[in-house]
């Protein structure tokens, strides 16, 4: 045994613990290298940390970045007023135009009401010189708008999600399919930047259509459909759709707003109950 070998034996005797420790460290390094080179293993270790960081970052955005974003936006708007106006004008302009037109109609109807004594006199004259009785003329004037049918329809496929009807008609699924085809055709043919078909009129009936992102609501109305009634119908639709969205949100967010809180999917009969509740006895 030469000197070197003797030294090794001596080392073994004196540094046994250290050697074990060094071996353990070596094994651990090999394991870590394997993890680093194996995408799945690395992902298993790193993903939860990244997710936690992302979640914390997302939660902190309003506090940390919010003021910066707001300040930046303010600054950008201040320096690029013309561009902002250009970008918003088509949207706002359309909304304002629509709002003013609707309000003008309401105003016009109110003025008509104020001059109803003139109408009454006219009615009397018509009844004297015409064949119709004054009561009949009055009745026809008083033919108030009534909700006949309501449909909640999937916007793209035209599949009926639920319907409410006071009178028996042809199959509601066929109606919703055809309505969707007509709506799609009109919107496609007169493609004017995201506008939607809102009203279909036939003789004494009107179909009021309110489009949302994934669905639309179609309300069939008979009688004299004035702008006042239109506003009421719109309110009913928005209230119902709000409830419908809450019912669906309950399935994933447990908001306690609707039927879905017990984890069951919203069924057609649930939707039809709600449609009946909102539109069944509504006065418009």
């Amino acid at each position, binding site marked *: 045994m030469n000197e070197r070998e003797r030294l090794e034996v001596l080392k073994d005797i004196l540094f046994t613990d250290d050697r074990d420790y060094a071996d353990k460290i070596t094994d651990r390094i090999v394991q870590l290298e394997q993890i680093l080179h194996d995408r799945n293993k690395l992902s298993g270790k790193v993903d939860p940390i990244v997710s936690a960081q992302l979640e914390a970052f997302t939660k902190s955005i309003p506090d940390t970045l919010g003021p910066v974003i707001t300040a930046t936006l303010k600054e950008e708007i201040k320096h690029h007023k013309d561009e902002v106006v250009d970008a918003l004008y088509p949207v706002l302009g359309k909304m304002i135009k629509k709002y003013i037109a609707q309000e003008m109609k309401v105003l016009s109807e109110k003025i008509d009401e104020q001059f109803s004594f003139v109408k009454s006199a006219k009615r009397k004259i018509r009844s004297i010189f015409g064949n119709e009785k004054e009561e009949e003329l009055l009745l026809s004037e008083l033919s108030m708008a009534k909700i006949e049918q309501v449909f909640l329809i*999937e916007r793209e496929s035209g599949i009926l999600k639920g319907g409410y009807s006071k009178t028996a008609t042809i199959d509601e699924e066929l109606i919703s399919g055809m309505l969707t085809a007509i709506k799609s055709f009109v919107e496609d043919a007169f493609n004017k930047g995201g506008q939607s078909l809102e009203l279909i009129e036939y003789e004494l009936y009107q179909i009021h259509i309110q489009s949302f992102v994934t669905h639309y609501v179609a309300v069939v109305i008979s009688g004299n459909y004035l702008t006042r009634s239109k506003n009421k119908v719109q309110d009913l639709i928005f209230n119902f759709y709000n409830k419908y969205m809450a019912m669906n949100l309950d399935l994933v967010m447990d908001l306690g707003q609707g039927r879905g809180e017990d984890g069951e999917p919203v069924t057609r009969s649930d939707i039809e109950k709600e449609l009946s509740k909102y539109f069944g006895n509504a006065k418009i």
Partner: protein
Amino acid sequence: MQKSKKVLLLGHFGVGKTSLIRRFVSDSFSDAYKVTIGVHITKKVVELPSGTSLSMILWDLEGTDELHLIRNAYLMGTHGVIFVFDVTRPATFQNIQRDLDIIQEKVKKVPVLVVGNKMDLVDPADVKRLLEENDIQSDYMTSAKTGDAVNEAFLEMATQLDI
């Protein structure tokens, strides 16, 4: 709970899309040819082997030789497509692969069945040879007039949609 699915029938002019639907829905046939304008919608509820029932909303689109010109609005939200060709008119299936590519491009990831119609007018052996020569795969060979394989084709689509 009964599910509803939108199924489109596509194909060239006069291949018998409307007749196939009429045979399937009302088990009837008419020799009088009336061109479909725009779209016609019908419905049939089918009972499936799984014990569930499915409401098939059948969109019968007007025939066109240029499938890429079909209005996208009609295709949106489609759950399944039945492409129909006329076995007596090669012009309706000569470019079938191109037509199917256009359909797949427009309605992504939905089941598509290929149906050769008007089998009552030809010798099945001749059609088989013709399709083989043109390397055409057809899922069903039907006759709206006699009713051959019509129900089978629609039920196959319903089954695929039930999954």
